[in-house]
């Protein structure tokens, strides 16, 4: 269970069995986003201005909360221990696990995001940009959050601590991600911002799994 493809397949199979793990973050995303027009004022101009930021913050929280359980099940069942003692580099198994998690939680958020953009009176022209910014951004959120999840796995009191560790690390992704639609609405060209998000994604995917692996080793007391 240490190759890339078998790990990914196992992750997807387990995830598809526990359907709540896919559906809950999605509902959470939808509900948080709904709270804002209710708490503020459903006036289209205002909604259009806060929309991208609200959708992004809600997606960020949904990804972060779903990560709390990422390694816990394996930690408790001992599967994690097995992985750590296996004589292979941890990079690919970890990457496969993160990819599996993203496919089950991040990707559905991306798919749902144009609908939510519509709820916030965003013009149809920027909806694909919103989705694309989340497509590039949510994997970064998954990888960076997984570092925090790896470090807090054995602690038994994840939630709040995980948020304290991870939220400051999410700041740049949020700024660039939510900035895409804001800039686009203001009439600027956003290719450069997409390129920046892509660069962050490349950085996260190339270095992140190493940090996650190091965090798992530390948590397991190695």
């Amino acid at each position: 269970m240490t190759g890339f493809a078998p790990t990914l397949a196992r992750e997807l199979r387990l995830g598809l069995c526990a359907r709540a793990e896919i559906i809950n973050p999605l509902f959470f995303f939808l509900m948080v986003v709904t709270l804002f027009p209710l708490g503020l004022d459903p006036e289209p101009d205002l909604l259009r201005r806060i929309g991208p930021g609200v959708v992004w913050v809600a997606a960020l929280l949904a990804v972060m909360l779903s990560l709390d359980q990422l390694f816990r099940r394996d930690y408790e069942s001992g599967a994690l221990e097995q992985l750590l003692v296996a004589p292979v580099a941890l990079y690919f198994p970890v990457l496969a696990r993160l990819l599996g998690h993203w496919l089950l939680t991040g990707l559905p958020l991306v798919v749902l995001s144009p609908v939510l953009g519509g709820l916030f009176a965003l013009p149809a022209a920027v909806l694909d940009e919103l989705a694309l910014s989340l497509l590039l951004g949510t994997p970064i959120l998954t990888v960076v959050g997984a570092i925090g999840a790896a470090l807090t796995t054995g602690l038994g009191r994840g939630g709040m601590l995980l948020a304290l560790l991870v939220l400051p690390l999410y700041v740049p992704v949020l700024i660039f991600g939510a900035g895409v639609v804001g800039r686009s609405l203001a009439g600027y060209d956003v290719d450069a911002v997409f390129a920046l998000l892509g660069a962050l994604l490349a950085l996260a995917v190339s270095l992140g799994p190493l940090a996650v692996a190091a965090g798992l080793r530390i948590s397991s007391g190695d």
Partner: protein
Amino acid sequence: MWNWLKKWYHKLGSPRYFYEITGAWLPWVWPLAVLTLGAGLVWGLAFAPPDYQQGNSYRIIFIHVPAASAALLGYVAMGVAGLVALVWRMKMAEIMIKAIAPFGATLAAIALITGAIWGKPTWGTWWVWDARLTSMLILLFLYLGVIALQNAITDPRQAGRAAGLLAVVGVINVVIVKYSVQWWNSLHQGSTIRMTEESTMPPEMLTPLLISMAGFYLLFACIVLVNARSEVLWRERRANWVRRELSNVL
């Protein structure tokens, strides 16, 4: 020179050597820190000329800028210690992370509070989402994360390495945060207001600022060293040299 440095680095990795050599340094560094800090602040408060635009409120800068730069430097130092702790598993590096975090967070808080107080007479409001203030707020959050993680793990060595990993990731993040916040600020705020314009600062203001900065660094170093020494004693409390060290003073 290189070999000497390498040897010294390995020696410093030994808690006992660290304890002994810093014990010899501290009686010199403490007075130096107090003198430098005192000189810089008194000069800045009483002798430097007022700013032609801001009047005397600019004198807050003699704490604000040094605290901010020391907080940033402290976080980078913590990241370096974190890397050493992860790669070479050096005990002293773990101890240094634990020693740096609380005062680093305090300095970030001081920078934020003095920035807000300075903002009231200057901008007319306590808080402006200025690029520097916002970055400093994120830096404070990063410090708090390291402290929270450190406190949540009971085993000291595990806590040290976990905090080290977080500090390393945090240092990479600090750089990205700085640029992203600048970009975001330029987007949302037409006129950029700067807290200080160092390049245009006349020497009679710059000199006390630099002295005060040196004072903050030295004070930071003193507090970190004393805290690290306490931690060394505590972790090595079963060792004979610690017992002997403490019985001598009786």
